[in-house]
Structure formats: C-alpha cells, structure tokens
C-alpha cells in the first residue's frame, strides 16, 4: 500500500478501538448479543487492518505464526476441556451448572470459558487465513518476477550469442 499519512494516522487511532469493541462483544456476550464468533472476527479485523496498512512483515511481527497455532489449538482445547471439567465434577459433558458455587455462577463461568475458547480460535484462524493467502500472493508475485528476470536473462544471452556469432562471421 502507498504510504498515506491520513490512513496511517486514522488506523493508529482505530485499531485499539476495534480491539476494545471486540473485547466488549466477547465479554458482554452472556448478557446481550455477542459472543465468541463475532468478537473473534472483529478482533482479527484489527490485525488484518494493521497488516494491510503497515505491511505484511509488521503484521506478522505483531501476531507470530507459532503463537497463532498455539492460539488456534488452545481455543479448541479450552472449549473441550471446559466440558471435560464438568464431566470430572460429576455432571454431563458441557453441563455448566457444576462449575461454580451456585447454578447461576456455574453457567456464567462455563459460558465465559467456552466463548473465550471460541473467540480465541476464530480470531487466530481468521488472522491465519489472511496471512496465508496474503503471503501466497507475495510468493506468487516473487515467482512471477523471478520468471520474468529469467526470461529476460535468457533473451539477453541469446542476443549476445547471436551478436558474437555475427561478429565471428564478420
């Protein structure tokens, strides 16, 4: 992207706001509309915006790939293990009632944990998708460039060979 001051300044203001809104959607999800899916996508949008405006390398720096795999798997495991926890406490799988002191607090804890797991996985999967596809693009461009260079080189050597032949004939 072109180095545009307006976009950069606005992005710097907007990105924290987007992330904050994602956290609101995430943690207000058990009282109002919201939850892990929506929050995860909004949260990932902040990172995608960052990478689009400040470049892929800086974006990758902000959200390293190793960490991303951990987040993808960790989210799923958090979801699953919440269910296992309620199973170990003597109830059925994903029965939140037994997780807290009362039924209500148990439901709160359960939904919070599960939705956090969902949010973590969705956010990191969206970021991973963007980086994978965008990374492929630079890869494809690089390949095309290298091919063009190679073709140009071949043409050059051919021309050289022809000109040396001509000279030799002379």
């Amino acid at each position, binding site marked *: 992207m072109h180095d545009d001051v307006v976009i950069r300044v606005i992005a710097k203001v907007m990105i924290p706001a987007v992330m904050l809104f994602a956290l609101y959607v995430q943690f207000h999800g058990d009282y109002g*509309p919201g939850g892990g899916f929506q929050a995860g996508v909004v949260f990932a949008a902040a990172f995608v915006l960052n990478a689009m405006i400040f470049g892929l390398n800086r974006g990758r720096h902000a959200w390293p790939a190793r960490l991303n795999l951990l987040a993808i798997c960790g989210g799923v495991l958090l979801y699953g293990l919440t269910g296992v926890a309620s199973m170990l406490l003597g109830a059925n799988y994903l029965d939140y009632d037994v997780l807290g002191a009362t039924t209500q607090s148990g439901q709160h804890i359960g939904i919070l944990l599960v939705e956090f797991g969902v949010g973590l996985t*969705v956010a990191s999967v969206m970021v991973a*998708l963007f980086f994978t596809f965008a990374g*492929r693009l630079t890869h494809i461009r690089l390949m095309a460039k290298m091919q063009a260079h190679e073709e140009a080189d071949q043409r050059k050597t051919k021309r050289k060979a022809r000109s040396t032949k001509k000279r030799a004939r002379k």
Partner: protein
Amino acid sequence: MSNLIAHWNYFLVIALMMIGFYAVIARGNMVKKMVGLSIFQTSVFMLYISMGKVANGTAPILTGDTTTLYANPLPHVLILTAIVVGVATTAVGYALIIRVYESYGTIEDDELIKIIETEENAEAGDA
C-alpha cells in the same frame, strides 16, 4: 396474489439459490464456481434467518416482561454455525485453487481436463 407477496422472502431465496447453483454447474472457472457456491450457501442462510422472524417480535433479549414477543433466535444460532462452516469451505476451496494454479498454471476446467487426460494416457501407456 397476496399470498405470493407475503412470501417474498422465499422468492428472493429461490432466486439467489438458482443463481448460485447455476454458477456452480455452468462455469468452468474454479473461482467462479466458488463464488457461485458462496451465493448458494448464502441463500440458505437467508432462508433460515427469514424463518426466525416473528411479526412484531423484538430482539430475543429477556426483558422480564412476559407479554413481550421475541424473534426466534434458534435459526440464527444454527446459521451462525453454518456461516462458520461456509467460511471454512471457502478458505479450503480458494487454497486448493491457488495450489492448482501453482501446479497446473490454469484454473479453467476444460484446460485442466485436457492436461489431466494427457497425463493419464501417458500413465496408461506405461502400464
């Protein structure tokens, strides 16, 4: 006639569905196929979401008032899952398209079939 107008959402859904399905079947370009598939899936999302609408119902957030009419949230939740599935399908599909392009240099069905047929004939010759 009024019956037809009252069910306008179904006509919208059917139109979208057929547009998407036609693109999936009739287009030879893999990207266009994926676009058609996305439209096809979206039409089903619309079918479910419009089915959750309750006349005069509000957003399904408990108000404490027992006389409040709520929209049915269940189809929305189902479609949330289906949307996530759709995103995953789209991602896998485009990833495959990129790999096909890198490997074959084309994403047109008819050209691909030609290349594959020559490969298979060569293999059959070996065998």
